[in-house]
């Protein structure tokens, strides 16, 4: 996609069209946002602790892990795109910038996972790189061991964000 495209070159999609598609979804984004209800309370606390540590290391960013259960006409990428732009993130640190979102979206119904990032990071991001970051959790996802899968994928995400930072710094020079 062209970096300054106003709409999708394939289907002419814009954000406004997704509002009706996901109007039944909660716009309040907790961290973690377990809409599918696959995480136990201790597991949520563990993920929250990881998010807190990651945000201390990256003061400009805010992280979230989202689990959802989408229908057939819905898509994990479009839902992530819609939630990132329309969602109301809670308890974001003051140093974080609006474009510094990093969100791991897991669709437990259609069985898909993807990583969504804000404009602060996407200059250096590639689809292949983010895909490789998540592929470590694939064996655990097959067994529906979501906590273990999230744990592995978040470890990859942290390293990937560091790589994006280095790449962004090189690109900015």
């Amino acid at each position, binding site marked *: 996609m062209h970096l300054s495209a106003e709409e999708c070159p394939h289907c002419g999609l814009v954000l406004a069209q997704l509002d009706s598609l996901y109007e039944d979804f909660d716009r309040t984004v907790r961290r973690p946002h377990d809409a599918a209800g696959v995480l136990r309370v201790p597991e949520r606390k563990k993920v929250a602790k990881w998010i807190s540590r990651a945000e201390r290391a990256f003061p400009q960013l805010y992280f979230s892990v989202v689990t959802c259960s989408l229908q057939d006409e819905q898509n994990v*990428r479009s839902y992530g795109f819609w939630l990132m732009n329309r969602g109301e993130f809670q308890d974001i640190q003051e140093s974080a910038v609006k474009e510094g979102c990093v969100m791991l979206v897991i669709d437990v119904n259609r*069985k*898909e996972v993807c990583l*969504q*990032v804000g404009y602060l*990071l996407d200059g250096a*991001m590639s689809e292949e*790189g983010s895909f490789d970051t998540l592929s470590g959790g694939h064996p655990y996802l097959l067994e529906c061991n979501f906590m273990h899968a999230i744990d592995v994928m978040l470890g990859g995400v942290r390293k990937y964000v560091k790589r994006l930072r280095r790449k962004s710094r090189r690109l900015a020079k």
Partner: protein
Amino acid sequence: MMNSLLRFLVGLVLSTMSLVMAAKLPPLPVWNEADKARIKEGELVVGGGLLTTEAPKPAGDDTAQAQGVEVIIEAVEAKPSLDEYKQLEANSVISGVHLERYFGKKPEAHLVDPQQMLSMQERIDLKYALDMHMEESELPIYVYLFDLAQKVPDDYSPKKVYDAVFKENKDPLVIVYYFIGAPERSDFLLAGGVSDRVPEWQVKELLWNAAHKAREQSDVFDQLDGFVGQLSMRLFWVEEILREMIVDSANPPVGQQAPSHSQADKLAGMLGSAGEIELPMLVYWISGGVLLIGVGGVWLVRRKLYFPESPSPCRLGGQIGAMSGGVLSYRNRHQPPSMQREQFRKDFF
């Protein structure tokens, strides 16, 4: 023909040589007429002065005897007897004149052997070894040699000999009583200077090592040589200790200069002395390395990473972001991530 010619030539050469030699010899003595007359008359016998026991009398003797002068025979000093270096019995106690020869005065050489138990060559070798030690060391060794089973009276122990003979010498020295053939009987004294602060166990270990080294040899002189060699090597470390003690005594710690009685001063002194404990440099290096690694680790963990402020322009109407990574599907167990990776960019939304 040839033989006659050869004989003629040899005869010619010999006659020529005899003539030449005769020309160089001094002239033979010649009897004068008066002596010839006395020989003929029998008053003079040729060679009579050599063959008779009567010595020719000087002309003045007859007059001295005639005057009756009394001849005084004075006692002369006895010639040195060979018994001076006579060895004592093998199992005797050192006594008599030998005590004086061993311990009467400060020995001039580092090897004290009045009984002459070593051969000349062995004595030279041992003296050379002791001299070599003295060239490299400031701690002289005085080796007193005794026989295998000889005993030294208690009044002549190394300590008492040091007090009697070496006391004027303020520098440290080593006195060794070595019993030839029995190195384990050796007696050892390190005295003088700050040597009394050397730990006793270290001195005993030194002596034990030297005796053990000597026991490795079968010949008695080789034993003595090994003993002295090992002693010389081990004394190097004793010298190091002595040097450190001299330096310490020359520079006393600040906390010990002025003894104080108040609790606060005592505490300050303890803290000061604890801070002055000398640790090996290796400990400092390791501590520094560990500290550096620790600080580096904490910095790595707690450092804050910032992205450059150059966000991308807005797309698809999104204000925060519009970038989505590759979708990983786990619906099909037989479609691993490596197969899914090939399908990128095929179905966006």
